[in-house]
Structure formats: structure tokens, C-alpha cells
């Protein structure tokens, strides 16, 4: 009887939270304002020059020229070429799941055609969902190839070592053919804005009650820690979903970001992600002693979230340890999922690798919050 879950009590808390949220005009304005401002700032202004992105080679036959090309690409710093050769199918899969950013395909007979001077094709496929990550590298590619070929081609062919004449360089920007930065920025922003606002809102949830003295009253009611948690996080999940709508509508109006996948899948992933955030925020508020501390904890979390999630810097271009930290952050999986859904049309099957970490994180955060919740004023 005493441990029973009461819908009425949860409802009481949720209604209260909604009213308080609505009445807090400034916060409400920020919720709509922050996404729009960030969207414009990031979407138009930010450009980055990332290095060492994972690259796969698909080659019909190996030879001195292909080796020279690979070496030159490595030397440029833009590409990190995986050892060995990949099949076409493997390469394609790697591009979809993001483990490769580039695939270089040397058709069969490349070496022979090169020496003959019959301009073999060199196909470069780039994952352009994040154009910032790929555009500079692609821009540098002709130069890199020229210098590699110059060393290989001697004698009469040396004169033809420049790219347009020696090889037929074909570049395919996959998923975002025009290389529009906003396409990539939008999923990233969706993640960062939600991280920022939803964690902060719930991080203040309990500390505010403590600071205003209302916690004593709440504790004296029969509401259980679990009910209080649900009552506190559910309104903010709704709130996060409103924000997502704002961002998506703006993204559509301002940047015409395509939507290749399904809205339902996007909604499901977003729900999981917001769930992670609000529960994490709530966990913060069970640990923090006051609103200031809760805010500091939120910012502390926010930093790695923008730096290590693949939002600022391409994930595969980061050092191992940074990738490890990044993998533990919900936002990393969320950004990948959203990019996948919006730009590549990924479905649930493609996203299981991103969804289960989110679900696990959510559960863990909830468990910690319940464990940390102080049932008394001691």
C-alpha cells in the first residue's frame, strides 16, 4: 500500500511543473529563442578543417602507383587510410554506418592504364553529411594526387602527371551532394540544444524546490521518490519535443534540410535522447545542493557533449580516448542517428547500434537518481 504507484500523485506533480514552466516567461522565451539563434549562427558561420578521417581503399589491383597515392594521402594529414583493401560492399556499409568517411576506388587495370596514358578513373566517394569534415580534404585531393603521380610517372609521361591529364578524378559527395554545412549542423544542433536546455531544466527541478523551501512540504506528502522523478521529468520530455519541432521547422525554412528517413523513427530516437537528458538532469539535481551547483554540473556535461560528440570535430578524426568518452555520451549516438535518418534514410535496423546505448544510459541515470534521492531533510 505504501509503496504503491499513484497516478494521481504523478499527475499532481506534472500539472504543477507545467504551470510553473508556463509562468516562467524568461525561460519560456529562451526555449524558443536559443534554438533559432544557434541554428542561424552555426548554420551560416561555422566552418572547420578536420584531419585524419578514416579512408578505405577498394582496388582492383595494387601497384606502385596506388601505393604512392595512398602514401601521399596519408602524408597530407587529411586521410587515415585503413590497411589492406576493402570490397565494394564493405566500403559501402562503412560509409553508411560512418566508420569510413572516404572510399577511394581504383578500377581494375588502373596501373596499366596509367602507364599507358589512357586516363584511368579514380573514384572518390565522400560521406558529405558533414561537409565541413570533407570539403577541405576533397579540395586538397587533386594536389595530393599530382605530387604522388609525379614521382611515379617518369620519362615521357612525367609531363602528364597532373590530375586532369593522368587520371580521371571522379568525386561523389554522398548523402549531401552539394556539401551544404547546414545539413550537418542541424542534426548536431538538435543534439546540443536539447542537451543544454533539457538537462538544465531538470537539473534545477529539485534544487529549486530545496532553495524555495517547498521541498519540505513535498517530502511530507506521500509522494514516493519514483513518483516525484516521473512527475518531474515527463513535462520536460514534452518540452524537449516542442523544441525539436521548432528546430526542425526552422531548419526546413532556413536551410531546406532534406528528410530522407521516417519521422516516426526520428521521433522515437529523439524521445530516447530527451529521456536520457532529463533523467541525467534530474540526477544532477539529486546531487547538487543548490541551483548554482546544478547549473555548473550541466555546463560541465555540456563541454564534452559539443566537443567529443562528432558535432564540432568528426568523430573518427578524434584520438582513441576521445572517441571512447564520446561513445559514452548520449548526444554522440543521437547526432549519428539523426544524420542517418535525415540524410541517409536510415531505418530502425540501421540504428540499433545507437538506440541501445541511449536506452542503457537512460536506465542507468534513472537508477542513480533514485539511489541518490534524499528522502529526508538530513
Amino acid at each position, binding site marked *: 500500500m*505504501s509503496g504503491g504507484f499513484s497516478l494521481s500523485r504523478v499527475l*499532481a506533480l506534472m*500539472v504543477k511543473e507545467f*504551470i510553473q514552466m508556463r509562468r516562467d516567461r524568461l525561460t519560456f522565451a529562451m526555449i524558443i529563442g536559443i534554438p533559432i539563434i544557434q541554428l542561424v549562427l552555426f548554420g551560416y558561420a561555422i566552418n572547420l578543417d578536420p584531419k585524419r578521417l578514416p579512408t578505405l581503399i577498394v582496388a582492383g589491383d595494387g601497384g606502385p602507383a596506388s601505393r604512392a597515392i595512398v602514401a601521399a594521402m596519408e602524408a597530407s594529414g587529411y586521410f587515415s587510410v585503413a590497411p589492406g583493401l576493402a570490397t565494394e560492399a564493405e566500403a559501402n556499409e562503412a560509409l553508411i554506418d560512418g566508420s569510413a568517411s572516404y572510399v577511394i576506388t581504383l578500377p581494375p587495370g588502373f596501373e596499366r592504364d596509367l602507364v599507358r596514358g589512357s586516363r584511368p578513373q579514380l573514384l572518390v566517394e565522400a560521406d558529405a553529411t558533414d561537409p565541413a569534415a570533407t570539403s577541405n580534404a576533397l579540395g586538397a585531393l587533386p594536389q595530393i594526387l599530382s605530387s604522388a603521380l609525379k614521382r611515379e610517372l617518369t620519362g615521357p609521361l612525367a609531363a602528364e602527371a597532373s590530375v586532369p591529364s593522368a587520371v580521371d578524378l571522379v568525386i561523389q559527395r554522398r548523402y549531401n551532394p552539394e556539401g551544404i554545412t547546414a545539413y550537418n549542423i542541424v542534426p548536431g544542433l538538435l543534439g546540443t540544444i536539447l542537451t543544454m536546455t533539457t538537462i538544465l531544466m531538470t537539473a534545477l527541478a529539485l534544487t529549486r524546490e530545496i532553495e524555495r*523551501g517547498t521541498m*519540505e512540504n513535498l517530502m511530507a506528502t*506521500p509522494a514516493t521518490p519514483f513518483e516525484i522523478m516521473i512527475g518531474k521529468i515527463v513535462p520536460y520530455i514534452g518540452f524537449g519535443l516542442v523544441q525539436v519541432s521548432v528546430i526542425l521547422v526552422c531548419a526546413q525554412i532556413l536551410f531546406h534540410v532534406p528528410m530522407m528517413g521516417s519521422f516516426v523513427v526520428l521521433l522515437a530516437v529523439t524521445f530516447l535522447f530527451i529521456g536520457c537528458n532529463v533523467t541525467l538532469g534530474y540526477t544532477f539535481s539529486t546531487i547538487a545542493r543548490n541551483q548554482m551547483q546544478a547549473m555548473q554540473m550541466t555546463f560541465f556535461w555540456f563541454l564534452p557533449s559539443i566537443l567529443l560528440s562528432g558535432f564540432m570535430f568528426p568523430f573518427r578524426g578524434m584520438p582513441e580516448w576521445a572517441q571512447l568518452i564520446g561513445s559514452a555520451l548520449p548526444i554522440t549516438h543521437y547526432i549519428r542517428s539523426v544524420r542517418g535518418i535525415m540524410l541517409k534514410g536510415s531505418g530502425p535496423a540501421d540504428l540499433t547500434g545507437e538506440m541501445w546505448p541511449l536506452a542503457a544510459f537512460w536506465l542507468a541515470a534513472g537508477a542513480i537518481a533514485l539511489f541518490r534521492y534524499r528522502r529526508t531533510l*538530513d
Partner: protein
Amino acid sequence: MAPDRSEDVVIDIHGLTKRFGDKTVVDDVSLDVRRGEIVGFLGPNGSGKTTTIRMICGLLRPDAGSGTCLGLDIRKDANRIKRLVGYMTQRFSYYEDLTIRENLDFVARIYALPDRAAVVKRTLERLGLYGRRDQLAGSLSGGWKQRLALAASVMHQPRLLLLDEPTAGVDPQARREFWDEIHTLAEDGLTVLVSTHYMDEAERCHRIIYIAYGKIVAGGTVEEVIESSGLSTIIVSGRDVGTIAKIVRDRPGVEQVAPFGNDLHVVGPDPAALRAAVDAALAETGSDAVASAGQTNLEDVFIRLMQTAQAGDLPANGRPTATERSP
């Protein structure tokens, strides 16, 4: 006496102790409160009243001691106790950014009250706040906040009401209405433990408990407490009481001197010594003021209790027992 005794004991705690750091704030407190009793909880600032009340309703974990509240263990059954208890905090702790009605709605939902809208409406009307129901609670005056908090804390019809200075800052008329209501509720079987600093409110209780420095130092009906203090009072009235006060204050046998308008209350433990001191002072000033035997009041007793507790000289028989006194 009711046949089933356990039904009748609402608060039954023994040796309750609470420490914050190395400071013992509540020290070996035992209480025994019966159904329908209104018990006044008095004591100087920082004496541990709020802390004791919080332990009874499960908001603080006692460091020592045990007991039951409404037959439920205060350590193990805190959550069930919370359903049956109405607690009004000393500091206003409803939501200032919610309107009056929204606050009451919240409480009604939290306790899953049937027919919520009607209950809230009735409460608002009884409070006289129906016309202002959509005003933010934060914009209410201090006294009105108290009245709102009280109304909210009885809405779920608790069986025990714990009130922590419920009438601080409330005007006399509202206080009287409040006490009338408390008595009506008590007649229906509600038990009330109420902390207060007002003497007139103490007199409206069936029984009072006085706590100082975390220890219960006196208890019983108002008359019993006054009587057991052994103090007597002489009232001096007339002109020049100010001068007389200065002189009589340092005389042996005089413990307290307090002016009340044109009167002067002189209090001491020994009636003969007190009379002698007052007579001497009157003679010395040549005043024509009149000295007559007066009734020692509760305030005099409390000031004495406070001073003796401060000196570390606690009466051994300070603990009240319920068997001696029922309402």
C-alpha cells in the same frame, strides 16, 4: 477511557534524539499524545521544536529513540504516516508561482482526494479566498499565506495535525477563528501538536510541553505548569513604577521584573522574601503605589524555565506523562 488503549495513543515516542554535527539539538525527548488532544509545544528559539516535529512525520531520521505515530513506526512506516498526517511547516512552503487554487489542486491530487474540484471550492470558500483564487500565492500577505497553508494541510482530513507556528503573523480575529476550528476538529477526534510562542495560544491547548535546549523541561495543563514552578507574583500599580523596577530588580528573592503598562509584575520563588523586597523598595522610593498579590502567568514561568535550563539546572521531573493528564 476508551476500551482499546492503543487506538487512543496517537504519538508515542521515547528517547528521541537528533544531532547535527556534534550539537545535540533534540535530546532524549519522549512524548505521549492521546486522540483528540491539543498539545501546545513551546520553547525558546532554537530549542528543537521544529526538529522534533520533523522527526515525528519522517522528515528527519532520529539518531536515537523510537516510537509510533498513529500506531505506525516512525522509522519504518514514514510513508504511511505521511498520508495520515497534516504538516504545516514553519516557513511557507507552498508554491509561490502557483495561484491559490492551483496550490490547493496540487494538494488534492497529491492525496488523491475524490471530488477534487468540490473539495477545493469548499476550502476556498471557507478560507474566504474564493474571490482571490486566481491570485498567485506569492503575492498574498504573510498572514494570508499562513491561512492558506493551514487550509491546505487539513484538506486531506488528517488524523494528526502537526502545526509549526501556524499563527505567526496572523491577526487576532483570524487567530481566534483558527483556534475555534482547531477545537472543532479536535472534538471530532483530530489530534493536534502545535508549536507556538504565544501565551494566549498555549492557554487554549489542553496541555503544553515546554522544551529548552532540546530537552523537555516542563509539561501539563497551564495551571499545573504554573503551579509546579512555585513562583509567586506581586503586582505593583501606581506612578513611579519605573523607579521601583530599577530598585527592586537587584533585591534578593526577586527573579523577574516586568512592566505591563502602569503595572509592574514582580516575580520570585519565595512569597515572603518577595513581599519583603517589594515593601522595602516602596518604602525607599516613598511611592504611593500599591502592591497586591497577583496571579503568576505562563510567560513568567517560561522565562524562569529558560533561565534555569540555560544554567544547566534541569528539573528531574520535567517529563510529562499522559496518564496524569487527559483532556
